[in-house]
């Protein structure tokens, strides 16, 4: 080591006259069919579902459990199909969705109000963070007894608990999203004369849209859960029941395949909202804008 001189190794310079053509590699080629198919999200997810269904049907065929306790996939699917064809299922879904939409819309409106206050004043911001800290961990369903006392056994009580499950989730994540909007974007907005509500709508909301969308999704999932749960508790007293009431009623009558069919529907509605509605919103907004892969 010591007797080696350390210094710059000077090599002759050179310049390439003509570049070699890339002949032995594909500069660009289409992926194989299998690669392309496995790149489709829906295909991958559907194959997982298919696997689960096969597992279920296989179990009931081999172990032969009591059908009243654990019906096979096929018999549950048959009941689902029958109730869909007869229109009974859609009527239940509609009853549930109607209440959900009422609660969701009211929850969003209230969240928007709180957020405007939170953005414009410090006390509003403190108020919102205190309220979300208090109510976010509280299961909405635990307010149902109070709601029944205040609003009676009917839609208003269901809407009340739904609002409660949407409001704090949306307000919290939107507020966090607003606080994460870069100082540069804020200054750009103010540079072009935007103030107050236009500033919130044209700068903060789109800039915080990834967080808002997460809030909307969580709020939706909370609301759907809460609503089905609430219907289980007092669906019997309401004029006409939704999906939760169907689960309760059919379970009581030991119509287990119906219970499964109703559970399917609860899941199905959830999947459609998540994978069709929210996915499309995502594709047309944050994916297009490069805020999400």
């Amino acid at each position, binding site marked *: 080591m010591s007797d080696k001189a350390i210094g710059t190794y000077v090599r002759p310079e050179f310049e390439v006259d003509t570049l070699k053509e890339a002949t032995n590699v594909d500069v660009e080629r289409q992926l194989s069919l299998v690669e392309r198919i496995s790149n489709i999200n829906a295909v991958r997810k559907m194959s997982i579902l298919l696997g689960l269904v096969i597992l279920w049907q296989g179990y009931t065929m081999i172990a032969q459990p009591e059908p009243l306790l654990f019906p096979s996939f096929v018999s549950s699917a048959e009941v689902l199909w029958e109730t869909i064809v007869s229109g009974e299922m859609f009527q239940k879904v509609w009853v549930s969705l109607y209440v959900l939409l009422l609660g969701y819309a009211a929850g969003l409106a209230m969240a928007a109000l709180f957020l405007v206050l939170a953005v414009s004043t410090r006390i509003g911001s403190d108020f919102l963070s205190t309220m979300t800290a208090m109510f976010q961990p509280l299961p909405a369903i635990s307010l149902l007894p109070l709601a029944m006392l205040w609003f009676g056994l009917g839609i208003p009580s269901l809407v009340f608990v739904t609002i409660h499950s949407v409001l704090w989730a949306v307000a919290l994540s939107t507020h966090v999203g607003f606080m994460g909007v870069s100082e540069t974007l804020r*200054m750009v907005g103010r540079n*072009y004369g935007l103030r107050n509500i236009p500033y919130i709508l044209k*700068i903060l909301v789109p*800039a915080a849209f990834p967080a808002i969308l997460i809030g909307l999704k969580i709020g939706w999932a909370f609301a759907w859960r809460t609503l089905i749960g609430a219907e289980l508790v007092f669906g019997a007293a309401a004029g006409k029941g939704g999906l939760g009431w169907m689960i309760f009623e059919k379970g009581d009558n030991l119509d287990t395949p119906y219970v499964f069919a109703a559970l399917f529907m609860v899941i199905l509605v959830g999947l459609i909202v998540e994978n069709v509605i929210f996915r499309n919103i995502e594709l047309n*907004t944050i994916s297009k*804008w*490069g805020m999400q892969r």
Partner: protein
Amino acid sequence: MPSEVMTTGAADATSAASKPNAPILDVEGVTIQYKTKEHLITATYRVDFQVFEADRFVILGPSGCGKSTLLKAVAGYLHPVEGEMRLNGTSVTEPGPDRVMVFQEFDQLLPWKTVKENITFALLNGGRCASKNEANDIAMEYIQKVKLDRFEDTYPHMLSGGMKQRVAIARGMAMEPAILLMDEPFAALDALTRRQMQEELLALWEDTKFTVLFVTHSIEEAVIVGSRILIMSPHPGQVKAELNAHDHSHATIGEDGFAELQSKIHNMIFADRVLEDEVVNHG
């Protein structure tokens, strides 16, 4: 282009008598302070300068001299505790579309709007255009000026850093502000792109002769881009000198005058640093 720069320079030098009546921007005795959780910091202390029409006025200084703070105050985001800033005679109190700012950060473009929409957004909200069609036309004109036609319907995340800065410059120029404020707009670009952008900015200036207030910490950039350079010393930021640089551009980089000016500025800034070290040592 170089010859044009030279003639403008010569005109400036010979026609000292035909000084414009009033400056576009008049900064007088401006002291800016801001508070951190524990300290009150004076960013600039009694800074004076005047920017005249078609100036390429550069504020140059080391980090901590308050040059960006000063620019933000001119933009109306910060308020001086002392002194006044007047734009065409009116005191600056809040941000407005008559002083458009081009930032260093690439996220100054609205990611949810295409290149064209970013510009029309500014034109419509800033009150420069009343109709969408008019805004579209102006936007396309400036997109062509910064050579981004074909990309008008692209979203910012698909653009390179240099292209994003070009959009931001186009957006600023399209507003035709009284003064264009640029806060180290090329500092986040690679060296080759930076040089290209400096050339393009100068070409745009040749074209429309807009007034620009440009903040940088690069001596070379100041000499190339600026027609007049304000040198600031740090802690707190104070005016150290104002020098002319209208004779210099990329074309004169190799010449003696360029190197001379560069080393003159270098010494001014460097002298400060030595002084500062001494102060620290004695303290």
